């Protein structure tokens, strides 16, 4: 090799490593954006919202067009609605997940149901609101009520719960199933006594994530379950309207042109909502990591 070509080669290498350095730096900076944004939004909500939180804020009903008082009915209402939606959705979701992971035979049905679950997960939340209005509120005559809201949110959380449960079931090793079957258990006995108990932590994690999603949703419940500043703050039956955290925030923002005194209550509501959602998610994430690490197999 001549000196000349060696020089060219070295030039090429420096140029290539320069390009790489520039490319990696740009990518690195761009990927910081997500971290930065999460940190910023959490900081902002804590800074603005923490001062609004007091025992009174968490335990009393709003007074004087929500300019005073607290958000207790909204917290209770959101809990009712979310818990109810999970109670409706979990049996179906778990059943579907068991079929997908344990019984499904390869072919048309399996593909159809998989595509369905993925499609359901992509349906916009406002469309669930419209369906809830057409189906539960009008066609089935539930009215604008807790029950309609529960059923609407159950439709929305169904795909999330199915995916999470299926993943948990699939994580159970094959050898567990083979061991049980070889001892003479039927497939259902094997699922009931071996697969489900092993997958339970994963299924619960998935349910917590589904709950976190349901509690923050506004669009599906705004015409089916909730209203702003109800005369009767706490629902006494399934056929009554409920107050919820996200819709309360929406209402406060809507009226804030006329009543500017609600700023701190708005921030307080956002703080509580975000605290609940973030804590549920963190619990699920930490729990999941611990379960994965603890696995003996």
């Amino acid at each position, binding site marked *: 090799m001549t000196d000349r070509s060696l020089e060219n080669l070295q030039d090429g290498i420096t140029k290539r*490593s320069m*390009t*790489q350095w520039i*490319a*990696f730096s740009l*990518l*690195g900076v*761009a*990927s910081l*954006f*997500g*971290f930065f944004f*999460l940190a910023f*939004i959490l900081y*902002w909500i804590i800074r603005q919202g923490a001062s609004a939180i007091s025992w009174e804020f968490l335990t009393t009903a709003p007074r004087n067009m929500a300019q005073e008082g607290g958000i207790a009915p909204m917290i209770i209402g959101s809990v009712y609605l979310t818990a109810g939606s999970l109670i409706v959705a979990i049996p*179906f979701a778990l*059943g*579907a997940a*068991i*079929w*997908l992971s344990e*019984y499904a035979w390869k072919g048309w*049905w399996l593909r*159809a*149901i998989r*595509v*369905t679950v993925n*499609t*359901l997960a*992509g*349906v*916009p*939340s*406002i*469309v669930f*609101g*419209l369906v809830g209005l*057409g189906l539960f509120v*009008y066609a089935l005559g539930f009215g604008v009520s807790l029950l309609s809201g529960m059923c609407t949110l159950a*439709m929305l959380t*169904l*795909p999330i719960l199915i995916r999470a449960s299926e993943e948990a079931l699939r994580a159970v090793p094959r050898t567990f199933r083979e061991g049980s079957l070889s001892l003479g258990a*039927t497939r259902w006995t094997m*699922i009931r006594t071996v697969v489900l108990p092993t997958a339970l932590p994963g299924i619960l994690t998935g349910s917590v994530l589904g709950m976190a*999603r349901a509690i*923050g*949703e*506004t669009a599906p419940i*705004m*015409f089916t379950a909730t209203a702003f500043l109800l005369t009767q703050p706490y629902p006494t039956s399934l056929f009554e309207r409920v107050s919820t955290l*996200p819709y309360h*925030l*929406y209402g406060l*923002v809507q009226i804030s042109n006329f009543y500017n005194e609600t700023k701190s209550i708005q921030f307080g509501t*956002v703080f509580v*909502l*975000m605290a609940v959602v*973030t804590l549920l*998610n963190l619990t699920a*994430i930490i729990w999941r990591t611990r379960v994965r690490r603890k696995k003996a197999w």
Partner: protein
Amino acid sequence: MGHTKVDGKPNLKIRMKHRNVDRYVFFALALVSLLTLGTIIYFIFAEAVPFLDKMRLVPEEQGTTSKWGEHFTDTRLGDLFTSTWRPESDREEFFGTLPMIVATTVVTLGAMVLAIPFGLSAAVFVGEVGPRWLKDVFKTVLELLAAVPSIVYGFFGLIIIAPFVRVHLDVVSGSNGLTAALILSIMALPTISSLAEDALHAVPNTYREASLALGATRWQTIWRTIIPSASSGIIGAVILGMGRAVGETMAVLFVAGNAPFLTWNILRPLRPITSAIALDMQESVRGSAHFHSLFAMGALLLLITLIMNWTAEWFHGRLLKRQGLKGG
């Protein structure tokens, strides 16, 4: 013992029968998801069809006829794609949804201009360049970002981004298409990044090794080998992120400005389809033309997102198929 015949032989036939019941029970439960999707499609279109149908059936000059009353006297099917939206009026009602369709398009494309470069860069950096622990942290951050309720994003946009846009771009109102696009780009980011990273992760390690062994730098390997082989999955990720942006309601409702006028200018207040449904549904009377027109918009929205989802699914399937071939 229950399955034992008098002669002592186990009755296998009965046991087999029992064994099969559970299979059908769980199949039925799995069908519920199919039923749910069917119900969604049916109810949206069932409530949308009266609108389209009656508009076509009642001729313009016929005046007040038909059980639908005066609502439909001056409307035709083609009016759905005109530019005037005045659903509740004493004189004449117009149901042109073109302003909303254009607004959704403008806001979504605006969001993608930001979300695609940032989302994909992050996916590449975290998946291919950074250390292993960074990836775990990053996935957690994305999961938390994805979990933030959309109304909180909307509130953030209203209080922080809208004033910022108003002051720095010198526009009349900070509630406009650009603010909505900014918020939507943040909301689409977790979907795009996370799924694109999965696609990169699915590229076999032998590809990396072969490229590096030929003397390529890490960057050349990423740019010329890994990204092209993951391209189907990356396209799928982008389409799904776009689908999220199209269907987003509460955030957009807070910051887009909600003016139902036809404009392609992103700096003007806009009213995307989702906001229009959320805003008007509380005011519309059940069974009125207005009510059904909102379902017609819902049907359009559902159709767009279904097509996007299925396209993404198709790209994803192609990725899996290609990798299946490689393995064999």
